[in-house]
């Protein structure tokens, strides 16, 4: 056990070292290094963007913009800072900027979505008859959860995403959002309460 733990910390150290080397190469303007950086963070950046914005197309736009900003500002990245939280900060900033630009964009609640929605999921939920557990396919279930997340205020969905989907700690989220830890905790609690309220009405989700 002890051996395993020490090895994994060694591995983390190694990972950090190789990350630092990669960042240095990026700072030197090496395009290949950016390619590598992209491959390393692509999934995380895209998933984070997807879960906070709620759709595939916007997530792609946000990811592209975020990587461009990473490229443009990597010089300002301090070697001793946490690169992952730095990247997440850029992603969330891109998202918040985009939202600001289209502020007319009102948040749609799940209920409204059900009323207006066209997808099969929406229609299935509309249907009053209870669904057998196995009918709700994993994808559909994910879609329902995603819609519920999208009904949250911006900061709450960012925090839910960073905590649950990206597995960041409270400390790291506080760093990403430049918020006090207490604020992060209380917002996550509020977000979870709201999601429990929405999703709790659908027991079939908790198969």
């Amino acid at each position, binding site marked *: 056990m002890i051996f395993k733990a020490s090895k994994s910390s060694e591995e983390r150290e190694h990972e950090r070292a190789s990350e630092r080397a990669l960042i240095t190469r990026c700072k030197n*303007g090496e395009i290949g290094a950016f390619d590598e950086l992209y491959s390393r963070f692509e*999934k995380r950046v895209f998933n984070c963007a997807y879960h906070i914005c709620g759709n595939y197309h916007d997530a792609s736009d946000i990811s592209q913009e975020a990587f461009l900003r990473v490229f443009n500002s990597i010089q300002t990245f301090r070697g001793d800072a946490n690169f992952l939280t730095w990247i997440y900060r850029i992603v969330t900033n891109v998202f918040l900027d985009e939202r600001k630009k289209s502020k007319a964009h009102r948040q749609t609640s799940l209920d409204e979505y059900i009323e207006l929605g066209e997808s099969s999921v929406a229609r299935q939920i509309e249907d009053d008859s209870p669904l057998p557990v196995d009918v709700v396919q994993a994808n559909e279930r994910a879609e329902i959860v995603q819609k519920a997340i999208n009904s949250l205020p911006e900061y709450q969905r960012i925090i839910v995403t960073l905590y649950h989907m990206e597995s960041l700690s409270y400390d790291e989220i506080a760093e990403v959002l430049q918020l006090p830890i207490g604020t992060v905790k209380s917002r996550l609690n509020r977000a*979870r309460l709201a999601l429990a309220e929405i999703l709790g009405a659908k027991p079939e989700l908790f198969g």
Partner: protein
Amino acid sequence: MKCVKAQELFSAYLEKTIQPPMGVAFEQHLAECARCKSEYEKFHATTVVLDELPQVAPPPEMHAAIMARIQEARRESPRKVNWLRFEWPSVFTLRVPSRALAAGIAMLLVFAMTYQLTPLQSVTANLFGFNKHTERLADDSGVAPMPMPWGVTAAGAKRADVGGGLMMGLSVNTTNPESTAFILRLAARDGHSIPVRVSLMGDDALQNGASSNDPNSVLFMGTVAVGRQAAVPVVMAGCANRMVQVAKVTWQNGDRSYSEYVFMPWTLGSESGDARVSIDNAAGSQILSKLSAEYGVAVIASEAQVAKSMTVDVSAGTADEALAAAAQQMGLSGEKLGSSVYILK
């Protein structure tokens, strides 16, 4: 315990970070309140669902699209990319413009940095080494607000009102043995932006107090916009043949123009024990240069003070004492802006 309070504690209880007495009260409430109990079960189940939310695969074409945009960004700003060719922890592995070396000036304006510091929007910069190339900085406000790109020490955290609507501060990093890096921070105090020019003073100019007309010595020429901080980085290399570099900041407010000098020592915070600075009847600029070098302090002072001739005899163990004594002899008052950074008024 009220239901609202209990629900505020759901996360803390779930994550077992709740304080023991509170935990007891919480459990007691759940035992008594069926509604909260059921809410908590939903809450717990929800966190499990969230943790299990599957990952989504990025669109395969995204990779190529991003790399193409990055290539394009590189093409559009080759100069910028050139200047990006260094790594901060070892500033002086970078390419120093040959012009700067030829001029014997071991200071650099690092454009890339000025550019990257987020608050610098709509600043027009006329850059040293770029032969008066003027460029309007793109709207880069989207860049994540970053702390200073290197571990700037706390020195000079404060900004001083230098009059004429301008606030001035100086941050310093001395952690790199091969260079001393300063960031001159400028901000507009009043509700309008201020045109500012920062140039480097040569020895001749310093001695006769005249302003330098050498275009190569211009570090920054632009506008400090309202609500934004202009950061002019100045890096001094170990190869510098002088112990102190002096920048002159000139700005315009209404129809008046103002000038302030900034004395920046190669070694900052090196209190040399019992140094003595004794100068008879010399320009203030020479006296301040000497003080800056001997006591390892950065000093900001107005041009009027610097041009005057005066006599100073200071012998002190600490920079604080030295600056206080010198200020007194010069008929000025000194204020400390941070560790080893002073302003004389």
